[in-house]
């Protein structure tokens, strides 16, 4: 059993409540951290090698050290709980089961960054979790861990929960800030970055839920110890939300040394593919990262075992690899149609485009329409090349990463499953009722007897 740092206590009866959480050792990191210099906390986070768990994987300690500290200007910490990347539901799990862990991480991080008002921006649909978090905040406050003069150290901090109202784009940190200011979720043009000019034009750090929760074990065990877990630059543990065609969908905490094969087939994790079906493809890190056919998923192009960590999942770049992303692990079995699946993702990104910049506003809808044509057996061969060209012209040319997120799934689907797209063109009647099937995409290792 891999070491768990975040979810170890998640299923202790009553852990949602302060008393139980405290009895289980909760809030120790606050007691420790508030005796430290803020800069020393940042140093520990740097040493831990923690990388942003929202998707981009940027080193968190480095992000913290960029925070500007002009005299007399408030600084803010904002927790990004706008989890919306298809395939991702790990933050929800953490907040629902062990909310105090997030609050604890937020108090330590607020102290390290000098934030006296800290906001949790949660996606609007997670309405019931707002109550869970507010309850945890109220309990922490009653027990002196929040509010004025925390633990007699002179540090004041309040945490507020702000609900969004249905917009994936607000997971992008500057769109989130705009939304928190009561505006449309239009991402800002950078620079300036939030570390210099963020919420209400003040220096701001925006971190994902899991990232901030990870600060708790980092302070408790020390950055160096934390860095020993995992492998290479993939330190610590990572929450993976597994879904799609697997026997045991759910949230798993892994230490990033296990192989993709073990993650999918072991009973400890996904438990294999249901109904005796075979693995066809997988999106390992949330809908925007490249989809991989089974043969490139379990082993890299060089034939080496692929592991569940940042480097190994990215091995081969976008040509033959993918990304760890947000940890949204989506599995497709042999009955699934890659064209249709890509269409649902294209529709998602079209629906979620803020509409501010032209490549994303116009390009996402165009891709969806062409995919609809292909899926319905009305496509032509030239549509596949056109689709490729459109995604290429969106990628890298937009204000925010949503353009890339919309382009990558389409690119990877064509790159790896071009013959399935061509089959749709060549079999216009059949493709609406039947699937292309497994073809040569099958997992070469797990062949049913």
């Amino acid at each position, binding site marked *: 059993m891999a070491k768990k740092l975040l979810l170890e206590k998640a299923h202790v009866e009553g852990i949602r409540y302060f008393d139980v959480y405290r009895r289980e050792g909760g809030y120790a990191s606050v007691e420790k951290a508030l005796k430290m210099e803020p800069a020393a906390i940042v140093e520990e986070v740097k040493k831990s090698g923690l990388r942003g768990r929202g998707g981009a994987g940027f080193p968190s300690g480095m992000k913290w050290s960029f925070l500007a500290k002009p005299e007399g200007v*408030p600084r803010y910490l904002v927790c990004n709980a706008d989890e919306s990347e298809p395939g991702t*539901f790990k933050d929800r799990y953490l907040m629902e089961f062990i909310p105090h862990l997030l609050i604890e991480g937020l108090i330590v991080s607020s102290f390290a960054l000098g934030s006296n008002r800290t906001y949790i921006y949660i996606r609007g649909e997670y309405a019931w979790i707002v109550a869970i978090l507010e309850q945890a905040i109220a309990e922490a406050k009653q027990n002196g861990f929040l509010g004025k003069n925390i633990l007699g150290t002179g540090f004041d901090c309040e945490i507020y929960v702000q609900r969004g109202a*249905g917009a994936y784009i607000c997971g992008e940190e500057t769109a989130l800030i705009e939304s928190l200011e009561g505006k449309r979720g239009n991402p800002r043009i950078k620079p300036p970055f939030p570390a210099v000019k963020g919420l209400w034009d003040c220096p701001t750090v925006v971190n994902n839920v899991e990232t901030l929760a990870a600060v708790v074990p980092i302070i408790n065990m020390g950055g160096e110890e934390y860095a020993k877990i995992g492998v290479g630059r993939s330190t610590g543990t990572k929450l993976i939300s597994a*879904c799609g065609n697997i026997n045991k969908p759910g*949230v798993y905490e892994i230490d990033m040394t296990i192989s993709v094969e073990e993650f999918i087939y072991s009973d400890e994790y996904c438990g294999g593919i249901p109904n005796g079906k075979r693995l066809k493809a997988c999106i390992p890190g949330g809908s925007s990262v490249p989809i991989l056919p089974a043969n490139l998923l379990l082993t890299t192009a060089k034939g080496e075992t692929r592991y569940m960590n940042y480097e190994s999942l990215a091995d081969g770049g976008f040509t033959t690899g993918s990304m760890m992303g947000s940890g949204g692990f989506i599995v497709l079995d042999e009955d699934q149609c890659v064209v249709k699946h890509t269409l649902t993702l294209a529709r998602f990104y079209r629906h979620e485009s803020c509409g501010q910049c032209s490549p994303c506003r116009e390009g996402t809808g165009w891709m969806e329409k062409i995919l609809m044509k292909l899926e319905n057996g009305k496509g032509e061969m030239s549509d596949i090349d056109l689709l490729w060209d459109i995604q290429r012209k969106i990628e890298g040319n937009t204000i925010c990463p949503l353009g890339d997120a919309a382009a990558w799934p389409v690119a990877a689907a064509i790159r790896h499953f071009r013959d399935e797209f061509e089959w749709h063109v060549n079999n216009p009647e059949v493709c609406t009722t039947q699937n292309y099937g497994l073809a040569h995409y099958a997992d070469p290792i797990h062949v049913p007897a």
Partner: protein
Amino acid sequence: MIKFSDEQLKQVQELVARYPEGKQKSALIPLLHMAQDTRGGWLSAETMDEVASLLQLEPIEVYEVATFYSMFNLQPVGKHVFEVCQTGPCMLNGSDRIIAHIKKRLGIGVSETTPDGLFTLKTVECLGACGYAPMMQYGITYREHLTEEKVDAIIEECKRDNHG
């Protein structure tokens, strides 16, 4: 014109106090949620104008925000709103079947309301419940691992609710 109750006005004050002075615009989205929840599940132009004056905003600032976010309904909706997810992972687990079933059971299409005003069916994009697919949002909670039978039970539950 409908007005916010004193109780609600007190909540507005508390909300505004969460932000630094002069930043009351930040309370806009929470306030729109509050208004929608207590006024039949949608936002009329009058409601939005009232919210604007409470927060000292121009009405257009409220319209711009309300039309941006998919959770705000700008047209009347049924008493029970089913919002079924149809994105990738839910599709892999049969959300198409669930949507087709609800359409058949209620005799309405997507974005339509039953003539008795009881039900509205909406399709939505990923709600972050991919491991519990197929699913839908109903009220403030999620209904997950949906099957045709489960959907029927939820519809019955709504109808009972209405008589009770």
